[in-house]
């Protein structure tokens, strides 16, 4: 009997390794943002939203090549408690065939598709494993629907065979209209670390603020997000302009990425340091907000941030059909400085910013403790939509000071006048002895001009 020789060594990947890798460096809030990105991408795919024209994004007037019905409202409902996490949307759903073949793979789908937010193919997996143990994903489209339900702990334990690298999948009925299509992800038996974070009262409010800060270009325009019933409201992305303030504008493309830079001053009075600095947006998602660090050039290509710059406001808008070409990290919460497109852009940002900082420096010539709010440039500035600014051609920052410095037309001169002479003059004029000396001199000057210096 010949001994059966096994000519292979096990190279099966460890499920726990992958899951640990992808869940470790992302926060719970940003995992939730990944799920919102997926819903937004679903909207974009289902209704053919054209993100190539940045100006449309800024104006909040989205163009659909295949628009939804008139009173359709795309909504993402997020419900968070210490027992359960649910995110439910009506944004078009996940195609069941795609779900079967590629959505659940640990890695991106092989087809690139439009300007999207879902980049690395791990957002969904990362979020569900981070959140909890009992997982249910249900999605319905006009092409049918599916349900995937499993226990994460048991799934992670089964990794002996290639066949274990699947999720249990069942088909369910689809829906008849796209407007009814959508996805619901429900997780119970939350993981202890996620549960502890969720139990802190500030978590929900932090999550609300993070969503508001990240999606100002989408909220209440393309989609609506409700967090535990409260509709998330965003501050609009505007910049200050006026008759005498022109923002700096720069457009260029590089490495398959379109870049638009705009810098000027804030229209918010009084300006607040916490809102000042550079904002970086990738495919409509705000990645970096109010940055005043070396990442965006402060203390490097331009001066280090100082309170006198609290009116500075700059936006860098990156867009690309290839989301992987954008300079964001895998968590989409930071910038990958290494990427050449960002290295190049930062230099452009420095040029643009220095124009504004030059003017701000002139306003506050000495670094003293004078309260800057007393001399706000933003007093004239009106909030202007970035979409309108994006229409302008490249231009530098211009600020026309409205305060006219008055030309001084008089001069003071002093001299020592002899007291006896003054006394004589007062007597001659018939003025009292205690008349102020300057009155005498003033009279004498006027007399001279009138009598001897007539040529005007």
């Amino acid at each position, binding site marked *: 009997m010949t001994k059966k020789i096994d000519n292979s060594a096990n190279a099966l990947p460890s499920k726990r390794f992958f899951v640990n890798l992808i869940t470790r460096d992302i926060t719970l809030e940003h995992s939730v943002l990944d799920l919102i990105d997926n819903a937004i991408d679903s909207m974009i795919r289902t209704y053919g939203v054209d993100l190539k024209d940045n100006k449309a994004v800024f104006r909040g007037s989205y163009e659909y090549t295949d628009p939804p019905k008139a009173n359709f409202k795309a909504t993402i409902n997020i419900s968070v408690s210490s027992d359960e996490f649910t995110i439910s949307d009506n944004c078009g759903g996940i195609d069941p065939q795609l779900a079967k073949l590629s959505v659940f793979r640990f890695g991106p789908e092989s087809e690139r598709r439009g300007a999207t937010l879902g980049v690395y193919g791990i957002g969904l997996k990362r979020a569900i494993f981070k959140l909890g143990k009992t997982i249910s994903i249900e999605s319905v489209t006009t092409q049918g629907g599916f349900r995937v339900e499993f226990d994460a702990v048991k799934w992670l334990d089964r990794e002996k065979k290639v066949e274990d690298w699947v999720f249990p999948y069942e088909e369910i009925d689809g829906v008849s209209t796209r407007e009814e299509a959508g996805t619901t992800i429900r997780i119970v038996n939350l993981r202890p670390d996620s549960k502890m974070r969720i*139990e802190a009262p500030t978590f929900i409010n932090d999550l609300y*603020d993070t969503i508001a800060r990240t999606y100002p270009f989408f909220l209440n325009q393309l989609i609506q997000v409700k967090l535990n019933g409260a509709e998330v409201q965003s501050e609009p992305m505007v910049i200050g302009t006026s008759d005498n303030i022109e923002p700096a504008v720069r457009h260029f493309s590089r490495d398959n990425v379109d870049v638009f830079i705009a810098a000027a001053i804030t229209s918010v009075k009084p300006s607040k340091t916490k809102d000042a600095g550079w904002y970086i947006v990738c495919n409509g998602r705000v990645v970096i907000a109010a940055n005043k660090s070396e990442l965006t050039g402060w203390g490097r290509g331009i001066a280090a941030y100082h309170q006198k710059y609290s009116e500075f406001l700059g936006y860098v808008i990156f867009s690309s059909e290839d989301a992987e070409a954008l300079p964001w990290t895998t968590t989409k919460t930071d910038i990958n400085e290494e990427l050449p497109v960002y290295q190049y852009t930062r230099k452009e940002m420095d040029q643009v910013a220095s124009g504004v900082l030059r003017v701000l420096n002139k306003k506050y010539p000495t670094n003293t403790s004078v309260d800057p709010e007393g001399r706000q440039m933003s007093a004239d500035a009106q909030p202007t939509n970035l979409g309108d600014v994006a229409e302008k051609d490249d231009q530098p920052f211009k600020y026309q000071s409205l305060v006219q410095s008055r030309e001084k037309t008089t001069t003071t001169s002093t001299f020592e006048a002899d007291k006896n002479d003054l006394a004589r003059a007062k007597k001659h004029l018939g003025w009292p002895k205690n008349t102020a000396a300057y009155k005498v001199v003033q009279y004498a000057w006027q007399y001279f001009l009138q009598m001897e210096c007539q040529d005007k």
Partner: protein
Amino acid sequence: MNLAESYVSVNYSLRPCKQVERRMILHTLQLLSETMFPISEYTYIGFGSIFFYDFIMLHKLLGLNNLVSVENDTSIEKRVHYNRPFAGIDMVIDDYSAVIPNISRDKKYLIWLDYDNRLLAEHLQQIIDTSFHLSVGSILLITIDIEPPKKQDDQTKVTGPADWMEYYKEQGGKLFNRGWSVKDFNQSKLIDRNFDLVYAAINEGLSPRDEVDLSPLFYIHYADGHRMLTIGGMVTGNSEARKLTAVDFSHLPHICRDYRDGPYPIRVPVLTTKERLLLDSKMPCADDYVPDEFEIRAEDIRAYREVYRYFPSYAEILI
């Protein structure tokens, strides 16, 4: 003084409602010390000011010996020392925030953050930090003024719910529920909003700790002038929570075991000594009892019945 408005206090500086509250809290602590909670061994931290009423009561009536009074007004340092009733009281002339890091998990505390003015961001931070440090079995009380806030720059300007919401949004920061809107800040809802913020602060401090909760004990509302709110409870793990459930609080109506029941109102009607003696002799009386001897509303009698055991008497002594 309009006697029909029984809640006008006779003398604000004597603050009868506050004294009733103190005595109710003391009674509760006495009950707890009789049932497996060694209250007399707790360290008391409070804001004694120059009167030290709570210190006197806790030391004399409950036997607490570890007493710390915190005063952040350095300009009255000598005055607070002068009025210190017992040498055993440690005086700390500093902001309460300086005391928090010294709270040890190896000791049990009774801490009364009697802020006596409107909720500020720094108060909320102190509540978070204190909750984080307190060991199980410790008792935390917070008293705040819940009168609607006035505008900072113009104290005379009439303000409304929108302004009040702005105030609490600014002070509440991350604890301010993003789902709130102006309609949640009507005057009648300010009790709930103040409670929500304080409760959120306590939970924020407790949440990183495993299996530790706040078991409710006090949720009291009164007005000696300004409307005030006291929120209190015991920091508990599973075993303290069980011990607490076993305690019979039935004859203490001011105890709150579930904050959703709402606050317990203390109302102290204005009565003369002669009137009080008569009423006391009828206590506890029927719901609709009114004396024949003088005019007084049935609801005032009922209010008196709630507090008669704790009613302060004020006497003038010629010394």
